[in-house]
């Protein structure tokens, strides 16, 4: 069967943008060094990575900070391009955004559902058709017509999650999402993710919480020093990871 996500010898390096982003003035005053830096200065985030993810898999990426996990998510989402190598993604990718991203705090919950849904790839009609379901699921109730600056962080998390949960995602990207919200919300998230798993939704999960990884994932990849160090069942990889870090 054709994989949903396939990385072939993917290398990603970033130029050191420091010479530019400090401004035109700096760039012109330190022209020789700046040009040299822009040409040669490279930071390698991923080196020669290959893997396939198949439909319905829930894959966790673990590893220390700066290992390159987030770069993998960004590459899957298509917001950055690989330096060399090939990436193939078949299906619509829906990222679960961090708290409040893609929201406008002066607008009501209802307006924000529309805004977020459209930014995440649905047409206006599609979002409007699901509006009531999303509102119900978020359990925000009467506050839905209040500006979201008055929401608690738990309410924001619920709102964001219910939009993504109703997008009918094909590939879901989750970056440390279970950290917010109370116990009942976390339970609800987990339940929804189990539903997704049954519906053959492919999920990619980046986390530092080994409990969550063990609970959700069907496969875990350990990223170390910008390459894949270990690829296997959650139990196996997580215990290796924990024993190395203790």
């Amino acid at each position, binding site marked *: 069967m054709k994989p949903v996500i396939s990385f072939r010898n993917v290398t990603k390096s*970033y130029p050191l*943008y420091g010479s*530019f*982003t*400090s*401004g*035109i*003035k*700096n*760039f012109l005053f330190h022209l020789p060094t700046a040009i040299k830096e822009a040409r040669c200065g490279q930071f390698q985030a991923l080196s020669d990575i290959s893997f396939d993810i198949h439909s319905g898999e829930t894959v966790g990426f673990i590893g220390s900070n700066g290992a390159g996990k987030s770069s993998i998510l*960004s590459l899957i*989402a*298509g*917001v*950055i*391009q690989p330096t060399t190598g090939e990436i193939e993604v078949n299906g619509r*990718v829906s*990222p679960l*955004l*961090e708290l*409040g*991203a*893609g929201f*406008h705090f*002066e*607008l009501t919950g209802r*307006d924000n559902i*529309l*805004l977020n849904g*459209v*930014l*995440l*790839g649905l*047409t*206006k009609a599609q979002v409007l058709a699901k509006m009531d379901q999303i509102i119900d699921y978020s359990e925000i109730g009467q506050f839905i017509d209040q500006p979201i600056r008055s929401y608690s962080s738990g309410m924001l998390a619920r709102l964001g999650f219910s939009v993504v949960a109703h997008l009918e995602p094909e590939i879901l990207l989750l970056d440390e999402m279970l950290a917010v919200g109370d116990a009942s919300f976390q339970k609800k998230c987990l339940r929804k993710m189990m539903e997704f798993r049954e519906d053959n939704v492919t999920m990619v999960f980046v986390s530092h919480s080994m409990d969550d990884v063990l609970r959700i994932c069907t496969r875990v990849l350990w990223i170390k020093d910008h390459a894949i160090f270990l690829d296997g069942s959650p139990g196996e990889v997580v215990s290796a990871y924990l024993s190395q870090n203790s």
Partner: protein
Amino acid sequence: MRQDLRYFFDLVVVLTAKEIKVRYKNSILGYLWSIALPLCFACVFYISFKVVMRIQMENYALFLICGLFPWQWFSNSVNSSAMILLGNSSIIKKVKFPRATVCMAMVLNDGVHFLLSIPVIALFLYLHGFHPSWTWAYGLPMLFVIQFLFTYGIVLMIASINLFFRDMERLVSVLITLLFYFTPIIYSETMIPPSYQPLIALNPLASLTIAWRHLFLDGHMLVTHVSISLAWAVLLFSLGTWTFRRLSPRFAEVL
């Protein structure tokens, strides 16, 4: 392809509606604020140039208003352009959506704003004994589209370049001030000394401003000035789209 276009359209509509909603949240006050600023400027210039310096021109207040409202649209959009992508960084870093829509929505928002201020211009015309002309029916939409393309092109350029050179913002505010005084807004094009006249053609905004003013004041669409501003608009739009397209694959990296 049709699906993509449909989606692009929806995205622009939702984003523009969002901007407008945020701006007019305090309903009537939002509107008053938006027309208060150009009117204030008109007041200041009227006092300094008409009352103090005694400029030789009839209906100078009206003359100012016809130039300042279109200018307001242009300068508002360009002034916010440097920060527009930075302000949306959290979503640009995570989601692959057509990024230019954010810029387009901003220019359209300021454009809608300008359209809403046209009744104010009409009111001032009426108070000075002028009347809106039938030419407005096709003149307004034409100039609106020209100014949209013109502004949108510049906004795309500044927005994308500012991510790489973060001090563009300051440069822009200086250039905007220069452009204001080099554009015939507070003086008429006929007052420029003959030896400097050819320089008007070098200012992309001059022809557009002249075209707007003549449309408002005497209902004429000046063929030369409209054509020149259309040419500038097409040029800037193409340049802006090209720059944006070249740089946008790297946006998520530099944010």
